[in-house]
């Protein structure tokens, strides 16, 4: 009997496919998310838009919040550790969190190295903006990816850019001759063996969700249309006027992302979504997507 194998860690993410993972900050929100059909919740101290507003250093949440959320729901509970923060990740693992997000939403603890995620029994999800970043994270042992988008903005434009980029680069690798892959690996900064694997599978070897800016059911469906395996919704749900209704609508739009009549129905009278931020108004240092290497 073996725990923490690639199949067990990656398999957990496979079970989440076609689903929505929602950011929550307490037990009450976690229950709303579960009731709405979320496949998992991300337990946080603050959602990304509030992290943005608060400024300063963003760290792992108070363990009491994770404990409270784990006690409240039967779906998996994820939590965020700072990039490269070995001890925050170990704490989350020791607490029994089901998945750790080594996340650029928090202030990085290490500006050179990400975690060696192979060392852990608990699986990790990491952000990416292109195939090079995605492949480096898989190389370090990430069992799941999410395209970064720009968290806490309610603006889908960066999420679109990143999922398109990753998928276009995957298609390129799949279509290349094997003798071209070493140079491609060098250009991308990606492990060569992983490109060979992507070519033979015809896709990434792990599940890839979309994140960072999903604010409406149509945004969630757009991510699925562009080839995401599922969607993370951060600030979008609990910053909207009617979170329960909003959460249900996002779940259904994700499942039936090509049923446009249905999405029209679910989008009716949802109330005001989160306000949103135009990306060009964000100073470069305020862009969370730039974090990670």
């Amino acid at each position: 009997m073996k725990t923490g194998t690639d199949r067990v860690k990656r398999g957990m993410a496979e079970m989440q496919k076609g689903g929505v993972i929602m950011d929550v900050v307490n037990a009450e929100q976690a229950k709303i998310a579960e009731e709405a059909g979320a496949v998992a919740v991300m337990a946080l101290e603050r959602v990304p838009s509030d992290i943005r507003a608060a400024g300063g250093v963003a760290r792992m949440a108070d363990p009491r919040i994770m404990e409270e959320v784990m006690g409240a729901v039967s779906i998996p509970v994820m939590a965020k550790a700072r990039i490269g923060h070995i001890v925050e990740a170990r704490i989350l693992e020791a607490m029994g969190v089901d998945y750790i997000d080594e996340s650029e939403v928090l202030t990085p603890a290490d500006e050179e190295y990400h975690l060696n995620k192979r060392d852990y029994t608990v699986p990790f999800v990491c952000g990416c903006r292109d195939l090079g970043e995605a492949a480096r994270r898989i190389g370090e042992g990430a069992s799941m990816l999410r395209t970064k988008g720009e968290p806490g903005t309610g603006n889908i434009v960066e999420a679109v850019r990143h999922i398109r980029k990753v998928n276009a680069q995957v298609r390129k690798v799949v279509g290349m001759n094997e003798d071209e892959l070493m140079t491609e690996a060098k250009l991308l900064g990606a492990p060569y063996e992983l490109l060979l694997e992507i070519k033979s599978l015809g896709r990434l070897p792990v599940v890839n969700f979309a994140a960072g800016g999903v604010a409406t059911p149509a945004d969630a469906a757009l991510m699925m249309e562009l080839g995401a395996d599922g969607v993370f919704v951060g600030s979008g749900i609990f910053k909207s006027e009617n979170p329960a209704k909003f959460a249900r609508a996002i779940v259904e739009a994700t499942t039936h992302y090509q049923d446009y009549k249905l999405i029209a129905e679910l989008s009716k009278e949802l109330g005001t979504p989160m306000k949103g931020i135009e990306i060009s108004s964000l100073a470069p240092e305020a862009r969370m997507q730039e974090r990670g290497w």
Partner: protein
Amino acid sequence: MIKVGVLGLQGAVREHVLSVEACGAEAVVIKRKEQLDEVDGLILPGGESTTMRRLIDKYDFMDSLKEFAQSGKPMFGTCAGLILLANHIIGYDEPHIGVMDVRVERNSFGRQRESFEADLDIAGVAEDFAAVFIRAPHIVEAGENVEILAKHNGRIVAAREGRFLGCSFHPELTDDHRLTGYFVEMIKESKQLAI
């Protein structure tokens, strides 16, 4: 050709489709209840059972799934799918489809860090089946007509009751298609009986 439906609301749908195809049958992803008429058997995949249940209710799938179960066509539930088939779930007042005479407990091996792989001896299927358990349920008690196919550390993790097959683990996550093949054979037998 045998047509096998895979309930496609959420979860590991693609993996089941590939496994069915590897067994020489045609796979149909079922997103709408009308599609159930097209298929000879149905796989309820792994995923989050609470999420699937919500989507089943939302799209009025439950009655159609119960009718399908009564029609004599075989059904195979893996992990969350086993929970959907069971007629008793510990800690819950009501079952979901509730057609298989077993009592199941959700997440009974622990949280994700306790998830594991183990080799199983599955009666009539394989003596060395690499099984992947992810936040898996197990069968606490099986009715008298239920044939126990496999146990792990004394816990029932695979069972069959007539045309219903259920397991705690994820056969779709490996390249070993023998359990899916066993289900395809069940469908062939049921078609012959129908003729």
